């Protein structure tokens, strides 16, 4: 079945909200992930450290250049993601809706190329 990447679009620099805000969000998001596992469509996923923890590798004159930070400075960044295995876009969008409700953040739903990601 086709795979979809559900990306959590996180605003700001990744500084987490205060615990009383974050705690219910994490609980709800975990519940959606467990539901994905129970439904048998969860492939992989998780939450990411803020972009400040990123290292970017760039090709340069046949060498690889290391840059401290994310690949692009942006108002929004990838806060986390889930890869799911569902029959079609409608099914992927249904999971996306549940993640929007849980995270209170925008979710990008994007299809993988056919056959990619399966070695």
């Amino acid at each position: 079945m086709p795979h979809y990447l559900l990306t959590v679009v996180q605003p700001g620099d990744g500084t987490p909200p205060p615990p009383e805000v974050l705690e219910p969000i994490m609980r709800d998001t975990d519940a959606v992930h467990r539901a994905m596992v129970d439904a048998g469509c969860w492939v992989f996923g998780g939450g990411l450290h803020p972009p400040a923890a990123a290292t970017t590798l760039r090709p340069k004159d046949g060498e690889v250049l290391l840059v401290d930070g994310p690949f692009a400075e942006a108002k929004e960044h990838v806060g986390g993601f889930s890869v799911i295995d569902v029959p079609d876009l409608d099914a992927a969008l249904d999971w996306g809706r549940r993640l929007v409700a849980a995270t209170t953040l925008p979710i990008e739903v994007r299809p993988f190329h056919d056959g990619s990601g399966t070695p």
Partner: protein
Amino acid sequence: MTPELVEAVFREAYGRAVAVLTRLLGDIGSAEEAVQDAFVVALQRWPADGVPPAPAGWIVTTARNRAIDLMRREATRDDRHRQAARLAEPDPPPEEGAVRDDRLRMLFTCCHPALALPARVALTLRLVGGLTTAEIAHAFGVPEATMAQRLVRAKGKIRDARIPYRVPTEADLPDRLPGVLAVVSLVFTEGHTASSGSGLVRPDLCAEAIRLGRQLVELMPDEPEALGLLALMLLTEARRPARVSATGDLVPLTEQDRSRWDAALIAEGQDLVRRCLRRNAPGAYQVQAAIQAVHDDAATAADTDWRQVVVLYDHLLTLAPSPVVALNRAVAVAEVDGPAAGLAALEGVELPRSHLLPAVRADLLRRLGRTGEALDAYAAALDLTGNASERAFLERRRDELSAAHRSAQA
């Protein structure tokens, strides 16, 4: 066999054939290629053999055979062979019910909410309406290459993101149907008040929207809002002959020559309004159609049952509140209780960037004799309209008023 006949048959057959072939081939692009191949064969054979008794069915069968040929020729993999074998299995000619299901699938795929609205409109006109890319580009005043790219991109998304080719379940239908109706409504509105260009209406787009509306009713005869939308379009279209003067100017409803209204369209529209209201599941399109039915029912502007119009707008405000509805309600209130009441009903209505609000205010202020304020409102309205016919109308009104104002002061 005239070119016009071929064009009409092709346009009618295109949507049906592509819908059936998309289910068989699993891909819109391959389906379109197969159908276009079938059209080429038709152009070779029909002049000599005559048009077959069921041209659309002939196109479907021919397209399917072409698809099988193509797959066998290109078959390098087993699954291609299997697919060709499956297609080649003896199959009775598609039944009308099955074709209808395929056309519904195509309609909901084209109007999927994951596609941007302009893409939905273009896809629906192409794959359901059977218009050519050039015709759609012309209707929306964009270069053909732009429209072609929009269609390619949208079909690419359907394929890559796997937008499903199916009719939504009963549970999802209430969420999905409004999107389908909105696409048809948008085509009609664009035709009825062209947002650009010199002509006030684009009759070809209105006709296309009504044709799509008839298809919706044929495909979903039990949806009162589909009936309501068709009725609304017919009752509005009926007034088109009187809506633009010989010089191309907009003629407001109250000043139209009602003998030029299309009586047959009005009768059909009013019959539809009665039919859907009997179902007692009112929706925004049905109520708007009912409002137009009240207008079309009046032999003269003075005979209009404005009280009924106000009641219907009150209903519409609860179903689909919007500043435009509030504005139209205020116009009706002015007819029942006078321009001062109409002006009061405009309080709190905000419609930035549209000429409609200042245009209505200008008219009400003019009728109240508040000439200076009326002239300011006409100026504000003129600043905001891009349609040449509407500009001409507003300028005429403003000039009449300022001439009367000057002679009164002289």
